[in-house]
């Protein structure tokens, strides 16, 4: 009752001890959360040596990305129709966005939307980073009929058709793998001729 009376009295006067304390409380909570926002910004750095920014330049030679000959140039003669390897531009293997899958098919096998001008003697290259959740794609070679070979991501079984611009044939990947231009050089090695013709990695 006493409280009720004092509340009535204070209604006339405006500022009371209770309202002042309440205001203090709200202000301090707001202040505390405000400073927390600054902290959260600090804890989520914009960039720390990651992400998918490619650094491939035309003329970069393709080198094996893995296996015993990792780092040495891929030669055109080492691959026949239906083969594929993972490759990096030479000296730029520290950037995972630069990883490509170099595929050799029959020259007549390509259909739109493959950009034929970016292929050479049956060689075609696509980004090897799956557009679903960023795993590296694998080559499902078909020895009996090389044309039936395809690219698959083993993480969630997205399937891409290398003869049709890495079109999504199945699985959860939302967009094709980006094509990049390659050509066979005079010394039998392969070099890039362009940048990626589309976005790399997960589209999130």
């Amino acid at each position, binding site marked *: 009752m006493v409280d009720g009376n004092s509340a009535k009295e204070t209604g006339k006067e405006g500022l009371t001890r209770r309202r002042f304390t309440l205001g203090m409380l709200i202000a301090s909570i707001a202040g505390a959360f405000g400073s927390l926002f600054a902290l*959260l910004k600090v*804890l*989520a*750095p*914009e*960039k*720390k*040596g*990651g*992400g998918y920014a490619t650094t491939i330049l035309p003329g970069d030679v393709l080198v094996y*990305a*893995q296996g015993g000959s990792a780092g040495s140039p891929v030669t055109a003669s080492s691959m026949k129709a239906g083969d594929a390897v*993972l490759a*990096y531009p030479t000296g730029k*293997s520290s950037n*995972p966005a630069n*990883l490509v899958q170099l595929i050799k098919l029959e020259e007549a096998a390509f259909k739109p939307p493959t950009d034929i001008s970016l292929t050479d003697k049956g060689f075609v290259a696509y980004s*090897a980073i799956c557009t*679903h*959740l*960023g*795993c*590296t*794609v*694998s080559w499902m070679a078909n020895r009996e009929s090389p044309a039936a070979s395809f690219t698959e*991501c*083993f*993480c*969630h*079984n*997205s399937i891409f058709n290398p003869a049709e611009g890495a079109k*999504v044939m*199945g*699985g*959860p*990947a*939302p*967009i094709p793998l980006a094509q990049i231009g390659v050509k066979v050089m005079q010394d039998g090695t392969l070099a890039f001729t362009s940048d990626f013709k589309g976005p790399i990695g*997960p*589209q*999130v």
Partner: protein
Amino acid sequence: MVFKWLDERLELRKFKEKFLSKTFPTHPTFLLGETALFSFITLVATGIFLGFLYEPSTTMVSLFGAMVPAAYASVVRIDLLPMGLIIRRIHHWSAMIMIAAILAHLLRVYFTASYRKPREINWLVGLSLWGTAMIGAFTGYLLPYSQFSVTATSIAYYMAKSMPWIGNWISRLLFAGDFPSDGTVPRFFFMHVMLIPATLIGLISLHMLILIKQKHTEPRSNRDRKEAQGGKRLIGIPIWPEQAVISLSFFLFLLFVVVLMAAYIPLNPIEMYGPPSPGTPVMRPDWYFLVVYGFLKLVPGDLVFTILGGKITPETIGGVIFPALNFLAYALVPFIDRSKEPQHYMANPLHRPFMTSLGVGAIVFLCMMAVAGYIDVLHITTKAMTVYALVATAAAWSVSYALLRWYNGKRGNNAKA
């Protein structure tokens, strides 16, 4: 002597009377929660051993002549220590058993309707424990920094990033920048050994406190005994010494089983996966993530749209919306199946056609999603798998509902006759 000295200062006798003589109802399924708790204790104990030897860094160091990340090298060295590999496997197996035990415990509580008033809060605390335990397990995936670690974490990074509106910020906060970043391993290490165990201890304490306050649900047979004897108190055994002896011997038995499994069943062979490399081999997550893993495979790739500037992709649907909806559905259970009066006895699932068939349907659905994780080896197309999953779920739900209705109809007739 020691007891007297302590008793004079801490009033141990009073504590014993008040707390240690609390009644613990007995039922075999009441050991499921304890299994989870004991697995957690084993995890902490083995985790302390591993924590002394692990190095949370991705700096490249030399290991037998090859350059590998320091984290990977330190785990290989742990494996080479006497008992090192077995401790690491006990740690990993305990995590799997803890999550399995929590799930079994949740199912027990679900089917016996022990979540009803007044125990709704503890149902939510239990669900949070389950989620936190899985996050804890997941942050542990990255630490050995093998090819498996990096692939699994990269997938989770893009799942977090696929959240509409806040995805970029959330993923940078959790993974310390864009993955793979040098900051990710130290941040995950901190979360795995500090933040998540602390959260788990807090939630477990809350779970236990609420349990002590509200008391255990009792088997139905206790009600008949009470009606016959006219008593009102809980029927069971006191915590000290009876329940303590049962719990201790159960803990030791569990430890024996886990050590046996760790000794003979290989798990997370990081030496076989190797350090991070460009290629991604076929790899599946631990069993409790198979549901999300399988569901991710079933979402069609062309399901992309925008709501209020937020981009929804197959990754968002499979990696964010689906798990969130699952947890939301589980959280809503005690608020859908409400009761006005407080309930203190386990329900018979056979007498509850609606809720029990719903649970059966949900279990079949989750199992089918786990099977979907294997469509590549089963050679089933995603469309066919989606149809199978929906048909199996609908069949399990409707058949179990019809059977239970029929059973209860028969029971009702018998009771009348």
